[in-house]
């Protein structure tokens, strides 16, 4: 590769990197994308209709495939061979999910695609906690519109507080609710809690050569007809079609190379298969390796000008790491035992969800936690898994004649509630470099520090109390997740796989690492365009916002490049 063969190097190929490459190539820039994992082709590699009997151990999760055999995660999971991370002594547990494949985590993600609302950008102004964003909802809204149009997101306009509707014609028509979702909707409404149609990154009408949802199989396997959103099916094909995109896989970037002028001149990476080191150059560098990986690259990019890492003059790189607050409860529902057999497949994810309903209560100080959460319901008569074996524990007949009938009654008679809540950034949650542990190529690894605050623990307790109340409304019995002590109920750090922050955006270099376009204050031809730049982490799952911010940042980059202002 000759010097400056490329206008932009994009590190990472997931939501942030995929969108950046899509936007930059559409704007005529020559892009080199570096992906740490292997190439991946959903059209030929997705086990769309494979049954449990066609997988080892009936598809149950193992250390090799933690979310199940068919999960679209390659060479990864909670551990990646030869690429460890550590948790600091005295810290609470933190987990870090990584794949090693083109498209990253967009291949298996939950496809819940929620816009942040106006309040979410002004949270400090509203309650004095955390920080405000340097942009408003109104500034990001057009990019949400474009992103939803490109990605394809289901939804309906409900007019709910801080839950923005999309312009007419943007959303895809959501599939109707399943039977247990009708039941849940009635119970929530009896509690005065509104229920909304799911905002899912699944198309229900064909667009851009992609097929509409087939209403079968698990989206977590990926989709060979491209009905759900994956970077590999939605962003990278049109980027490649421009002829402006070069993709180099198996390239683990570990450093931004800084020239004597203090500007980024490229990056260095190690070939994951051969262990050889390489440096490539371009006029601009975009990091989108995933929040923790991008922060790690900056911290490892040390030079006389940046002895503590690029952009870290104020010690902010790695700081204010966040995840989503999570709790779950499972209930048995006798009413559902009486329903005839039914098709509960649909678009894989829930067809409804419960947006946060307590803004006014919080404004009146009636709740003991300041930020909201939403609820993702689950249930239905889905393709059986090995959990059927656990269901036998619920049968009054331990074995022999009659056990089949008991299992038949219990099939589809369980529902679940997953609460997903906002975490407020705090000083105890961050990553730095482990002083001794290195990966298999000798590069220092991230060391995590984690501690939920009482805001999150009280919120988790409220989630559980809400779940128990609604379960009682429809006559169910909770069978798992009944503990209402927030400290016990809350998920582990990183476990929701919504880790964001670490390279946060802001209004000046004293309070942030990058500006609202992801442009580093310290190195003006370096951008960060993944979840690392989020200054707060609202309850609304971050992927749609990462996509919208990446598009906005990449468009800004292209504009500057055309004006030779980079």
């Amino acid at each position, binding site marked *: 590769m000759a010097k400056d063969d490329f206008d932009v190097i994009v590190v990472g190929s997931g939501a942030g990197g995929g969108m950046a490459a899509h936007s930059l190539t559409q704007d005529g820039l020559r892009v080199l994308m570096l992906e740490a994992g292997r190439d991946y082709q959903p059209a030929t590699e997705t086990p769309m209709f494979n049954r449990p009997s066609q997988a080892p151990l009936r598809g149950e999760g193992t250390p090799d495939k933690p979310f199940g055999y068919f999960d679209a995660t390659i060479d990864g999971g909670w551990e990646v061979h030869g690429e460890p991370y550590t948790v600091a002594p005295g810290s609470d547990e933190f987990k870090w999910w990584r794949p090693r494949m083109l498209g990253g985590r967009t291949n298996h993600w939950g496809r819940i695609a929620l816009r942040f609302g106006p309040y979410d950008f002004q949270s400090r102004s509203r309650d004095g906690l955390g920080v405000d964003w340097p942009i408003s909802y109104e500034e990001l809204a057009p990019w949400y519109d474009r992103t939803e149009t490109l990605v394809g997101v289901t939804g309906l306009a409900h007019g709910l507080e801080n839950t923005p509707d999309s312009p007419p014609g943007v959303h895809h028509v959501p599939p109707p609710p399943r039977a247990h979702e009708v039941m849940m909707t009635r119970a929530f409404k009896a509690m005065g809690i509104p229920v909304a149609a799911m905002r899912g990154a699944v198309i229900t009408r064909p667009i851009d050569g992609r097929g509409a949802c087939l209403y079968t199989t698990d989206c977590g396997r990926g989709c060979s007809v491209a009905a759900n959103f994956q970077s590999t099916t939605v962003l990278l094909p049109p980027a490649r079609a421009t002829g402006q995109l070069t993709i180099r896989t198996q390239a683990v970037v570990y450093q931004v190379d800084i020239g004597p002028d203090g500007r980024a001149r490229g990056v260095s990476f190690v070939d994951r298969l051969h262990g050889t080191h390489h440096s490539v150059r371009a006029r601009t560098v975009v990091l989108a390796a995933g929040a923790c990986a991008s922060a790690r690259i900056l911290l490892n990019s040390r030079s006389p000008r940046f002895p503590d890492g690029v952009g870290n003059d104020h010690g902010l790189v790695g700081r204010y790491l966040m995840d989503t607050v999570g709790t779950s409860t499972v209930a048995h529902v006798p009413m559902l035992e009486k329903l005839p057999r039914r098709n509960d497949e649909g678009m894989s994810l829930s067809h409804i969800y419960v947006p946060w309903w307590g803004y006014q209560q919080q404004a009146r100080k009636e709740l003991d936690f300041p930020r909201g959460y939403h609820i993702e319901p689950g249930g239905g008569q889905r393709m059986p898994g090995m959990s*059927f074996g656990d269901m*036998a524990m619920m049968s009054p007949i331990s074995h022999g004649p009659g056990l089949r009938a008991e299992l038949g009654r219990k099939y589809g008679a369980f529902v679940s509630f997953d609460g997903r809540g906002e975490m407020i950034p705090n000083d105890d949650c961050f990553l730095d470099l482990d002083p001794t542990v290195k990966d298999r190529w000798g590069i220092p690894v991230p060391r995590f520090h984690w501690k939920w605050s009482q805001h999150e623990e009280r919120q988790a307790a409220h989630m559980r109390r809400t779940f128990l109340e609604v379960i009682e*409304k429809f006559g169910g019995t909770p069978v798992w997740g009944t503990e209402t002590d927030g400290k016990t109920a809350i998920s582990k750090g990183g476990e929701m796989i919504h880790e964001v922050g670490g390279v946060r955006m802001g209004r000046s270099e004293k309070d942030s690492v990058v500006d609202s376009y992801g442009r580093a204050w310290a190195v003006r031809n370096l951008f960060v365009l993944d979840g690392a730049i989020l200054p707060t982490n609202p309850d609304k799952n971050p992927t749609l916002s990462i996509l919208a911010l990446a598009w906005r940042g990449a468009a800004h980059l292209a504009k500057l490049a055309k004006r030779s202002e980079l």
Partner: protein
Amino acid sequence: MQTDPSFEHDSPRLSRRITLQWLAAAAAWSGIPAEVLALPTVSAHGYGTDPVLVKPSTGPWRRILSRSQLVLLSRLADLILPPENGEPAPSRVGIAEFIDEWVSAPYPTQTADRSIVLAGLAAMERRAMQRYHQPISALSATDLGALLDVMVAQPQPEFFLRLRYLVVGGYYTSDAGIQAIGFIGGVALPSYPGVTPEVQAVLEAELQKLGL
């Protein structure tokens, strides 16, 4: 006891200390000295972190169960989940072969189950000799059922619970089991039908009872 050469005694996946803890637990309820149940661990590799997902497959590792153990597991599975209403018996859908795949696998959950299942089978063979003075393979279905009832009635029936998990889970994830449970799906649809009138009628009646 298995002496398959694919076993090794100090697998890095499973410390000997933990193995001995399992053995002690198994021995506590089976009445067998722990040293008799010296179960080595499997050294085989798993399917790796990048298997070809679209190609139907089962675990690539070597199977460890003997023919007599497979026969015994089939008979026990049919006692746990006997055929009813025209639905096939577990033995007809390859349940023993599935359990063999499971307990032969080199992963932690399956390794733990291997200890439990092999110890449980050994305990049943011993009880057959004690109670009926004949090998377990010679017992009638009635006598084998009585022996199974003894295992169910243990204060900590770990063997029965894990065996039932494997039988029920394995059965209903087989193609015949999926059909038996009445799963509707697995085919592409032009649109999602939502709640059918038949389901809606029952649902509404139930919701009304609850004032919903």
